[in-house]
């Protein structure tokens, strides 16, 4: 327990590595709605965050150029810091002798949405589990389409098929072959389907003499013999990259091949991307890929299990990493609280979103919220009710990503550190809101440190690590997790509601002692202020588990530091149960919110 509860303290401690050559860096995260930017520089020979801003991403008319948003963000940083970053509208790279500009810039992005992959081939269903393992954690959206293999579809069906393909607009096709040689006609039929799909996706030109653009790229995973067949049939239309047939030991070639397409095909669609690409020092990567790097670093560095959570407007990303080096990503590339709200509602059902809302809201209100945020993509909640709906959606988005097919982060126990980042969590109205969203969404067991990346830079550090691991590590320790919300003790058991679940003895370093008795079903904040330290002794009821087994007592080996929410005791049980009766459910939610916001104390 001591190691767990000291996690947040350790995060603040830093580890004194010597800075490398770069004097200053610009971290850029182009999201679908907002572009976040952070300026990093040397302060007393240590890399520190100097300023961070968020401005609207500019991808569509009247400002269809992603660089406009990037320049706007740089201008805002100039205003905040007084440091000159632009000259004649162009970024100054590298840093000048007079201190203007920065030495390097790195980019992560989810702006253009996930890489859309159309999958087909005889192995698509039979190797589905391996396919999910190979692709989990990548920012991709798998599409399936029953493309005719014999050309026997009626004209109407072909129109519908073409309309669907044009609606989805896949960036690439993935043909999954069988792991062993198959009769030639099987793989040939799959290649024929891909050819038909590529033809259907060709734009209808006004002028027939206009040169025909190359078709979408194809990745083939299968045997060398099948690869030859596919290449021979498709080479006139597009490029084909062949990788090993899928097996438990050959997942990474497919992972790498698909990952490489993100920069080249998904991001390049962004207007102005070529200019942005020229100013960054490393290949851009998807935000979730970068966030995964940070989670892995923190897990390795502190030898703890870490889950990083980013709920975005269009997508939701969890990056789990274990002390043992295992990476457990969970991504829903198209479900979020803004433009991804429609997908979220379709996936979880409107009733599951509305159950988290205390105000009287009907389905029409929710549909209006979802559609309005879909058509006005930079709109933030405008009323307390809209904010409550957004938080409800955030809880469900986390739960959806956590239980996405092929992901294993739901089974990660304990979650020693939960790191919240991204616009929704970083910009909450009250820190308690972020804590509740993460607790309700993830439902961690045992003891967890909740930390909030209010500067929103955690998602950028993974790519920075490609440029300079030392700087990324230093920032991870110093600035990416600056706000310790509090340590959470989650107690679960089948004691009746209201009965004693847990007795806690707090021994403060100044000699004070406090005893708290926690009732089953309650959520409680104990007053351990930021900077204050106390030793914990935990005495759960015989049928209550705090992560060590039912009834097992525990005493911290080192003092726990308080957070902005003190020490949180979550005795609501796992899985969390909301009352079936609507009035009781609303009362439950209000009680929990008041408890964490500390409204009873004021």
């Amino acid at each position: 327990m001591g190691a767990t509860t000291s996690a947040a303290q350790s995060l603040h401690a830093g580890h004194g590595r010597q800075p490398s050559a770069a004097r200053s860096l610009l971290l850029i995260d182009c999201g679908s709605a907002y572009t976040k930017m952070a300026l990093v520089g040397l302060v007393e020979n240590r890399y520190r965050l100097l300023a961070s801003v968020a401005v609207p991403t500019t991808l569509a008319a009247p400002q269809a150029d992603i660089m406009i948003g990037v320049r706007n963000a740089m201008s805002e940083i100039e205003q905040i810091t007084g440091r000159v970053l632009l000259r004649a509208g162009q970024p100054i790279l590298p840093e000048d002798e007079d201190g203007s500009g920065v030495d390097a810039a790195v980019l992560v992005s989810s702006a253009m949405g996930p890489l859309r992959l159309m999958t087909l081939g005889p192995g698509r269903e039979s190797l589905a589990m391996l396919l999910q393992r190979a692709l989990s954690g990548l920012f991709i959206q798998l599409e399936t389409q029953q493309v005719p293999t014999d050309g026997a579809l009626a004209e109407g069906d072909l129109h519908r098929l073409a309309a669907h393909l044009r609606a989805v607009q896949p960036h690439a096709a993935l043909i999954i072959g069988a792991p062993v040689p198959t009769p030639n006609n099987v793989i040939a039929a799959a290649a024929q389907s891909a050819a038909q799909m590529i033809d259907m996706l060709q734009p209808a030109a006004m002028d027939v003499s206009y040169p025909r653009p190359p078709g979408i790229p194809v990745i083939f995973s299968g045997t060398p013999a099948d690869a030859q067949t596919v290449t021979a049939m498709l080479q006139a239309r597009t490029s084909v990259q062949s990788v090993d047939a899928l097996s438990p030991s050959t997942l990474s070639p497919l992972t790498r091949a698909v990952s490489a397409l993100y920069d080249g095909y998904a991001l390049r669609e962004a207007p102005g991307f070529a200019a942005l690409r020229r100013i960054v020092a490393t290949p851009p990567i998807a935000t979730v890929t970068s966030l995964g790097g940070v989670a892995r670093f923190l897990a390795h560095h502190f030898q703890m299990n870490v889950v990083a959570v980013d709920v975005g407007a269009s997508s939701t990303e969890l990056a789990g990493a274990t002390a043992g080096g295992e990476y457990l990503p969970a991504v829903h590339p198209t479900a979020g609280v803004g433009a991804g709200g429609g997908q979220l509602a379709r996936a979880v059902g409107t009733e599951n979103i509305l159950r988290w809302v205390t105000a009287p809201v009907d389905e029409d209100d929710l549909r209006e919220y979802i559609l309005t945020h879909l058509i006005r993509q930079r709109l933030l909640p405008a009323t307390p009710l809209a904010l409550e709906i957004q938080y409800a959606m955030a809880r469900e988005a986390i739960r959806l990503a956590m239980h996405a097919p092929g992901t294993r982060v739901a089974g990660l126990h304990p979650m020693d550190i939960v790191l919240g980042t991204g616009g929704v969590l970083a910009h909450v109205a009250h820190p308690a809101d972020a804590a509740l969203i993460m607790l309700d969404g993830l439902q961690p067991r045992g003891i967890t440190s909740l930390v909030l990346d209010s500067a929103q830079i955690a998602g950028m550090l993974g790519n920075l690590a490609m440029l300079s691991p030392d700087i990324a590590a230093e920032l991870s320790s110093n600035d990416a997790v600056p706000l310790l919300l509090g340590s959470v003790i989650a107690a679960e058991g089948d004691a009746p509601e209201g009965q004693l679940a847990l007795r806690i003895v707090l021994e403060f370093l100044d000699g004070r002692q406090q005893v708290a008795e926690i009732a089953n079903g309650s959520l409680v904040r104990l007053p351990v202020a930021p900077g204050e330290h106390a030793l914990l002794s935990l005495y759960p009821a015989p049928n209550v588990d705090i992560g060590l087994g039912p009834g097992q007592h525990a005493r911290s080996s080192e003092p726990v530091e308080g957070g902005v929410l003190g020490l949180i005791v979550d005795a609501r049980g796992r899985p969390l149960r909301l009352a079936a009766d609507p009035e009781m459910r609303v009362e439950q939610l209000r009680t929990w919110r008041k408890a964490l916001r500390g409204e009873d104390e004021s």
Partner: protein
Amino acid sequence: MSNVALDYPLGRPIAPAITVRRRRPLPPGAVARVQAGNGVNALQPIAEITTQHGRAPVLAGIDGRVVAVTPGVGIFLEGVATLLQGMIGIGESAAGPLAFLPQGESPAVALIPRGAILVYPQPVPLTLLQRAAAHGAVGVIAASASALELESFARADISAVLEWRIPLPVPGPLVVILTEGLGNAAMQADMLAVLRRREGEMALINGVSHPRQNMRPEVLLSGADTSLGEYVPQPVLLRRGALVRVAAGTHRGSRGMIRHIPAHSAIDAAGLRTRCAIIDLENGERVSLPLHLLDVVG
């Protein structure tokens, strides 16, 4: 200042004079009646299609000239028009005369002219959409609608359509354009005034919406609307003196002028810390509102 009104492709909802190039789609079996280079007027049939009632003309919808005729794709027209942009729509291209319901008459019983584009400057009830479709109107331009009622009418999850997760519905008999979006907002006064002035004239409308591309539904009216003054080209910045309209929240639909944009963020009505502007509303109230809620309208 980095905060720019982004919700309209032209920076604002009305462009009084703009050169546009638009496609009038041709369904399978349609026969074009014009060639590239021909001049056309809005009322002119440019193609014929086969319907269950026999042959029917496809009208140009706007004055201009034919740029290209591509069989199976459409006829491309170019002309100068007044362009009104809505927030959300369904259906593709349609042309017809603008018509208003008689003042004071219930939408449940009012006569709906066949082939017309009905203008309804209030939240449109499902009944009116259904009656408009049943009585042969080709379009409805309304201020707003209930989300569930719009989805009931479209028989589709509109969010999936807007994300282009599912194909656009097969062009139905009725194109719907909501100028203010979902909910119960009334139509902005400027837009209503333009539509009133053009009552009875041909309009070319398109309900296709793609928020990610900022593709908005639109109403095209032939020629420039000189009463709106000179068109100020984009970019349209949220800055002191800009005339803005509030897009959401308790002040939704209110108009006013930006008096000041403080350098520091403030807590807004939702409880979030955001950049805000101090605005003098037209009703005399002075309010602080988040920049993300503001559309520049002049």
